[in-house]
């Protein structure tokens, strides 16, 4: 990990004009990332942002760090090659739901199962923004868009379920209306060794305005957001009057007055068994029901790059540093005088 440094937000702001639509949720996320960076004590020169294509993917241009704005869907693959060769760097991947879950879905799940040291920010606005409003892999069934005038037939991904299904060691969810929570999640994700994914509910006010309004608007949050806290019973609502019980692989919302606090499921983000976190991720498939936010899972498993580098060290210890002449003489040879 890079050494720590003292920076201000300005140190993280590039000289490029930010060109998202006015009112886009991406502005809030950018600010939260820059602030998280100052709190983490990172150095801009040791930080790399790699993105694919889409509105969110313009992100690297706005960070005063190293960065690549690459091609659609491939950011996790490119970032994997960088992270495996340069463990001294802090490598972040940024992309939207189309970029990371649709065209790049394969790279996402494989980065996750390998547990390469990457922090992946998934901006989920449930729509294609840059191509002007087609349904995305997280759009709800029946959604009317330019490419689905009679309603989308596609069943959407539940990103947290998908990510847990790929055996993620870290996955969290946050939303663009709560800067403090975003900063907290970004810092937690950054500190995790391995692939950490943060799903960010992001509002696209041009093509999918208010997609999360039912849960993220100020008045709705208390009753609709279930904050996950490690080691604590899962409770939400005014005075914590609602709770969650996970039983037989299914999570359900209960009234604390009915069941008592002792009956509530206690959240353990480092539970080796991901099935409780998975059940929680199924609690709300659409943002019209109480939705868990926070760290679903933060579990330790060997990180790919560390093992790869350990193998290199081991090979050198066993065979000595590679010698080309020895290599060339490695098959049977014969002499001709």
């Amino acid at each position, binding site marked *: 990990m890079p050494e720590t440094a003292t920076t201000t937000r300005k140190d993280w702001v590039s000289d490029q004009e930010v060109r998202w639509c006015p009112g886009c949720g991406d502005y809030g996320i950018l600010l939260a990332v820059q602030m998280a960076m100052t709190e983490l004590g990172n150095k801009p020169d040791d930080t790399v942002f790699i993105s694919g294509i889409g509105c969110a993917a313009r992100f690297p241009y706005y960070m005063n760090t190293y960065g690549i704005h690459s091609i659609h869907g*491939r950011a996790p693959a490119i970032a994997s090659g960088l992270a495996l060769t340069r463990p001294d760097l802090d490598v972040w991947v940024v992309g939207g739901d189309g970029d990371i879950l649709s065209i790049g879905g394969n790279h996402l799940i494989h980065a996750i199962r390998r547990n390469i040291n990457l922090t992946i920010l998934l901006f989920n606005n449930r729509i294609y923004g840059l191509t002007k409003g087609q349904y995305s892999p997280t759009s709800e069934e029946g959604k009317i868009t330019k490419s689905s005038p009679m309603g989308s037939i596609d069943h959407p991904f539940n990103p947290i379920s998908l990510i847990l299904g790929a055996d993620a060691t870290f996955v969290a969810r946050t939303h663009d209306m709560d800067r403090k929570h975003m900063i907290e999640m970004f810092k937690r994700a950054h500190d995790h060794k391995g692939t950490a994914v943060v799903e960010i509910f992001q509002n696209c006010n041009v093509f999918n305005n208010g997609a999360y309004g039912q849960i993220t608007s100020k008045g709705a949050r208390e009753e609709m957001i279930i904050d996950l806290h490690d080691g604590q019973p899962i409770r939400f609502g005014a005075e914590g009057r609602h709770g969650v019980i996970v039983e037989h692989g299914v999570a359900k919302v209960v009234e604390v007055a009915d069941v008592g606090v002792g009956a509530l499921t206690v959240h353990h983000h480092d539970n080796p068994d991901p099935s409780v976190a998975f059940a929680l991720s199924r609690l709300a498939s659409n943002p019209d029901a109480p939705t868990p936010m926070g760290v679903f899972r933060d579990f330790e498993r060997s990180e790919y790059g560390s093992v790869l580098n350990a193998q290199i060290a081991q090979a050198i210890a066993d065979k000595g540093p590679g010698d080309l002449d020895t290599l060339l003489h490695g098959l049977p*040879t014969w002499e001709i005088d």
Partner: protein
Amino acid sequence: MVIRSNDAEYVEGKETVVTDTEERTSEIPEVERIIVRFAGDSGDGMQLTGDRFTAASALFGNDLATLPEYPAEIRAPAGTLAGVSAFQVHIADHDINTPGDSPGVLVAMNPAALKADLPKVVEHGTLIINSDAFDERNLHKAGYESNPLEDDSLAGYQVISAPMTSLTKEACKDLGVKPRDAERSKNFFALGMVSWLYSRPTRPTHDWIEEKFKGKDLVIAANLAAFKAGDVYAENADLWASRRIVRPAHLAPGTYTNINGNTALSWGLIAGSRQAGIPLFLGSYPITPASDILHELAKHRNFGVRTFQAEDEIAAVGSALGASYGGHIGVTTTSGPGLALKSETIGLAVSLELPLVIVDVQRGGPSTGLPTKTEASDLMIALYGRHGEAPLPVISSSTPADCFFAAIEAVRIAVEYRTPVILLSDGYLGNGTEPWRLPSINDLPEIKVNYLTGPNHVDAEGADEFLPYLRDETLTRPWILPGTPGLAHRIGGIEKDETGNISYVPANHEHMVRTRAEHIARIADSIPPIVPAGDADADVVVLGWGSTRGAITAAVGRIRKKGRKLARIHLRHINPFPPNFGDLLRGYETVIVPEMNMGQLAHEIRADFLVDARSITKIMGQPFTPAELVERIEETIDA
């Protein structure tokens, strides 16, 4: 053929097949060369048998060339023509170029192998046959109406038939090996026979069996017993009249090893990394016939080689590009279908102007095509297979050992010019072998690496500034490693100006497109001019690229011997071409281009130089033989 590190012109082999009148100390008649083809069912171990015969011959000092041919299916139906696996080896007492025209000896382990490969055998050739396999069922599966060992159909050949399966079982019966398992050693029986017939040393095979099957004592015992039984059988079966010896070749002094193209290419990449002084990263997805490069490089972590088996071809090249961005030599290896998938990322590499080596071990296409057969039909996709104006250097290797030097050259161009480079090999080079006189590592070319570590420009106000796309005199931009203090910047696939930032200015795009093209064109300044081989005053030149080198060299040699004047050019660099190439071509009356495709290089020559190139093409999944090239070159000249 023997490759020398200075890549000099090859000595053309003598053409007479047999000189069995001259006798030396031993009683065994000498021949200058033999071509043996081992053929059997996929499960019969023919690749291994051929490989052992080759190894013993290499250690004996012969020059040689090999051609393995196997079915695409791992377990094609047993006993059928589709399931025939063959290995052809040409050994000689002189410098040779190819696995030969037609085998003089065919080892056929079953009727299907005989049926499939008999047409390839020379007139009056020798057939060594496992008679046990010629039962009604197998004959039927191979489509024989009557047993060729019993009718007259093989009358024109010298047939040596032996009950190899039963004799192998017999030889193993006191070893405690189950008869079923013993049967599996029958390929060593065949090897024993052939080794005796062609006076091969047996020690290397003994040693190899003991090493290879270490810990499996029964297998060692069975294989050794079968090998010995084959040897004894040949000696006792009155085959003395058929016995021949091929004396060691008079090769240039040095240390030799027998190498295939995929291994040589892997070593070349490691050598390139050594010469550049930066580590190698391979992102690869398994694909025939390129996977062996991944396997080979995976063995060499002690060279700092990071191999990464990616989830798909796209991630393979993406991870390699990420590694290059980080300052390593990013390499990806594949075959045609994979190259198609990598196309978009290679375009990104063109735009980012980062080093990247893409190795395409070509096979028959399109689509799955002929996955285990060779072809050289990816030249056009290598040159043009990207959207937009996206030129990049394309080079090719021409013999198995040459893959070593081609890989170093690919690394050199990629690293020094910060560009993706496509290196074309093919299945024939990848799997075929030849003796290689090992180069001295002190003679390998130096590869210069410069990372930018500080400002590279002074702005209008006289202040230091840093421009990621400011170019040097070769139009190459700097390589800046993330982590370098003070040089944080962003790059991307969107059009950019010198700052690396997005620019949609119309004139800037035109400028950048033309600059990228000129950048690649100027690489020609680092390529040595071509010196044609053959007759300096010839009006006709035979122009080749890739694995046709051996066959073209042999064919041109034979035609010249008949008194015709011919020149020969074989290309390493296809984009950009060497600097004198166009002028040189225009100086010939006739330019003939043999290719294992529909005429892709010929098309290129016509387009670039307005030269009326004549194509000779072959698209059968098999390399040209010298004999067919002689005929077709003569036809073309006389037409």
